[in-house]
């Protein structure tokens, strides 16, 4: 339910003609909700641009897969290439937007998503390159962890994937913009109150006062 909500909200950020790299999980699901009339060129870091939905059984190609090694199709006009070319696109600033998941994000726009000391050891994969190189970075995640702790922190406690790169945070409860001077609340999800957001967000929300006033009036 909240997965779907987040995926649909991500899709509102797509603009016609954008080159976009979507992370595994909820970000990838947002491709199902690209608005009609908006053409988005999806990039996959293992070496594909303009890929389409997964193939039917019997029609997969062993040499066409996404970054999770799952079968994909290529759209007419799509291109395949090697990983060095792919990361020239990513690190070289040619990709307009990336949407990624995270363990924590903080009010300075730093993100932790690749390591929990003593618990999670996966390696950073292409995440650091994507976060550095893509023009716009959106983090999509649940607002709290499974224990109910805020994943939007004053300062990340886990090892960073990148420092001060995040532009927008989309959760199941709210949407935030990360500005030079801090975090701004932009939207509340249906039936979520300002008080609830305040309680579930450790980070300082710069414009929380305006939201409280508007809720009272």
């Amino acid at each position, binding site marked *: 339910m909240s997965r779907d909500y987040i995926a649909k909200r991500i899709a509102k950020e797509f603009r016609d003609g954008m080159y976009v790299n979507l992370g595994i999980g909820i970000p990838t699901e947002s491709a199902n909700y690209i608005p009609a009339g908006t053409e988005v060129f999806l990039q996959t*870091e*293992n*070496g*594909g641009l303009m890929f389409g939905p*997964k*193939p039917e*059984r*019997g029609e*997969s*190609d*062993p*040499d*066409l*897969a996404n*970054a*999770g*090694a*799952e*079968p994909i199709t290529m759209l007419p006009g799509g291109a*395949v*290439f*090697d*990983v*060095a070319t792919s*990361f020239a696109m*990513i*690190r070289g600033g040619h990709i307009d937007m990336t949407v990624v998941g995270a363990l924590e994000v903080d009010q300075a726009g*730093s993100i932790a998503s690749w*390591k929990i000391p003593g618990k999670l*050891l*996966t*390696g*950073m*994969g*292409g*995440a*650091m*390159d994507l976060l*550095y*190189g893509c023009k716009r970075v959106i983090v999509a995640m649940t607002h709290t962890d499974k224990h109910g702790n805020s994943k939007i922190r004053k300062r990340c406690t886990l*090892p*960073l*994937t*990148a*420092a*001060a790169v995040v532009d927008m945070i989309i959760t199941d409860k709210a949407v935030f913009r990360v500005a030079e001077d801090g975090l701004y609340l932009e939207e509340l999800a249906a039936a979520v109150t300002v008080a609830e957001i305040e309680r579930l967000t450790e980070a300082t929300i710069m414009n929380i006062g305006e939201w409280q006033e508007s809720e009272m009036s």
Partner: protein
Amino acid sequence: MAVQITTQEAVKKIRDKSSVMIGGFLGAAVPLKMIDEIATAGIKELTVISIGAGYRGGGVDIGKLVLNKQISKYVTSHVGTDPNLIKQIVNQEVELELSPMGTFVERIRAGGAGLGAVVTPVGMGTEVEEMAEKIIVDDKPYLLFKPIRADVAVIKAHRCDPLGNLQYKGMSNTSPVMATAADIVIVEVDEIVEVGAIACENIGTPGIFVDYIVKGHSYQERKNVYEELWIATNKL
């Protein structure tokens, strides 16, 4: 000029303690037959250089070398797909050398292209700073990483001619860069065609980089292998 040999002959080019690059991406477009042959031959203490671990869940493709405990060092950007490998890293049976994915590929490219280092901003402000030397270029801080080379590269292409000219199909992944960066380069292909059958503009890796050719599964056989794997893992 490349020489066609069997997988059994090719695997003899890899010895205990060799460093081996393996092309592909998390199990996709990997040299399946050569990996099986390395597993069968039981070569030990390998340094494996691969962009990520094997197919999700482990035990498949490169994951077979993990199950056999043939790897003593893994040079990569991601191991999250193979829980067996993670266990061996945690138990310190396998040494892990990580770099961000784009940096990993450029280190191999540098190794093959005769460059002295890779200088990149990626990883600044993170733990990656501890994995590299910091340098300043035009007042901007960068991380300096050393090139990567290997004794042997085992890569995958769709087809080749007897000169070792390779044509890729779909994503070529890491194979084109790895082809440049090892003392011995072995390519596994779906089919071998006559000289001239691959138009010059379709040659993805020129034969100058390739030493040995082995015949892998046909394209149709490989398609069947992946269809089965993808269906069994709910991806298709």
